[in-house]
């Protein structure tokens, strides 16, 4: 009996380094194997995709990158999937960030798009096909300012060019004139967009966020304050699958699957040993 207690105790208080090794292997092996599976498409991701897909060439989509490199693994694939879809549909992309460290990520994403689309004979030109307004200081005030007068709120782009005469902004005076706005957020900016943007200026808003914060935004989805929600890497993978560009999101799904399964298994095993050790009593 004592011997049984010893080995169950040993398992319940397993050295954390063994767990770290297991998690590392669960991530590395599927990524090295290069497996890309398919994912179930959730209704909230499909609504974002469908809305963009139904826009006409030349319509404008504002994609706001409210995150920094800490959330890059989840939100950057989402950003690229949205950019690719918009470029495939010949939509104009307007981007900015309210996170200081996100400005360079936005520029990097556009640089990547230029590299990807140039061999296809498509030149993506700043001020014509897209505009990166860079970092905008002021938090929620940026949304109010852009809702009042977009050019006045963002007089120059990331490279310091005046936005006043940019062809991409022809016919766009404020957020009301933009066909679709999507906030990709690692923090609480989706709340700001709903409260200070949608409720005040009445445009259609979609959202993307990290998996851990997705549950926070279901009430907005239910009330129609956001028309769709892309949650975490899984959401990015769903969007990549819908848009026909399988990239980092889908590649990461196998790694995420194995880690989730591993953690679930570890919790079940740890509880089994916990009950066997008799501590419950």
């Amino acid at each position, binding site marked *: 009996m004592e011997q049984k207690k010893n080995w169950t105790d040993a398992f319940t208080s397993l050295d954390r380094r063994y767990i770290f090794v297991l998690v590392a292997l669960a991530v590395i092996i599927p990524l090295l194997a290069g497996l890309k599976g398919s994912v179930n498409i959730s209704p909230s991701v499909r609504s974002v995709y469908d809305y963009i897909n139904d826009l006409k060439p030349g319509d404008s989509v504002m994609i706001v990158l409210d995150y920094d490199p*800490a959330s890059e693994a989840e939100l950057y694939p989402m950003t690229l999937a949205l950019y690719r879809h918009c470029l495939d549909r010949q939509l104009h992309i307007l981007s900015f960030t309210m996170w200081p460290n996100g400005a*360079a990520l936005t520029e990097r994403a556009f640089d990547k798009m230029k590299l990807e689309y140039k061999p296809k004979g498509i030149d993506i030109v700043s001020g014509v096909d897209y505009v990166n307004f860079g970092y905008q200081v002021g938090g929620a005030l940026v949304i109010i300012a852009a809702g009042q007068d977009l050019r006045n709120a963002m007089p120059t782009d990331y490279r310091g060019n005046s936005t006043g005469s940019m062809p991409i902004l022809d016919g766009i005076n404020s957020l009301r004139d933009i066909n679709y706005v999507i906030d990709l957020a690692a923090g609480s900016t989706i709340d700001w967009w709903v409260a200070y943007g949608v409720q005040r200026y009445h445009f259609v808003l979609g959202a993307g966020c990290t998996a851990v914060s997705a549950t926070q935004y279901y*009430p907005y989805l239910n009330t129609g304050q956001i028309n769709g929600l892309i949650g975490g890497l899984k959401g990015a993978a769903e969007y990549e699958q819908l848009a026909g560009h399988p990239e980092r999101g889908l590649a990461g799904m196998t790694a995420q699957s194995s880690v989730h399964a591993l953690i679930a298994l570890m919790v079940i095993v740890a*509880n089994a040993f916990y009950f066997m050790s008799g501590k*419950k009593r």
Partner: protein
Amino acid sequence: MQLLRKHLPIAVAFVMGVVMFFQFYVPTRFSSNFLQGVTQWDRIIAGFALLLGIYSLLNHHYHKLRRLVPGWGFSVVVYVGFFAMMLSGFIWGINNPPPETVRDMTGVILGQKQTQVPFMWIYDYVFVPMQATMFSILAFYIASAAYRAFRARTKEATVLLITAIIVMLGRVPIGALLIPFKPFHGDVELLPWFTEWILNNPSMAAQRGIMIGIGLGIIATSLRIIFGIERTYMGGGD
């Protein structure tokens, strides 16, 4: 001194609070222009807050360096990182040049090449991996903590544990493979379906309650600030 430190900020907060409250309900051109002006003012002030933050960061680490407190080496890293990024941005700019077309000897296009300015190179190959690494370490700690602490000790903990396992598996493709049964003759497997149900019903109900609570709290705090009852924003904990 009392006037500047106490009465004036309270008066400004009261006047602006009341004016901005009524502005929301007055749909005139003057009201709209006023909002635009105030927003610009606020954004300029927020910009200065960034400068204050930079000063505060450098000052904090300067004192650590001057006293050579344990861990002062990290303060050196802060200074090196700060000035390396700032100077590389000032000297070589922060914008990459447009991609160049790479051709072979016969002029056939081989592909595209992106040259990077030092600022973007440091950002891409130092800053991004470091921040991503810091965040990804969480996965290891969460796994370890789940193994050690997630126990079905009570009924409530058991419900939480079962829900967590269902959502964890239902949010990834393996959940659909584990139980391929599709409930209610639908096209979604059991675990993803149940996960969506949890997120759309009990979880959303709880979130809604929290949001309403936060909203009421914001209104109460705003009124306290406008009427000068809440003064902690002026410092001093009064």
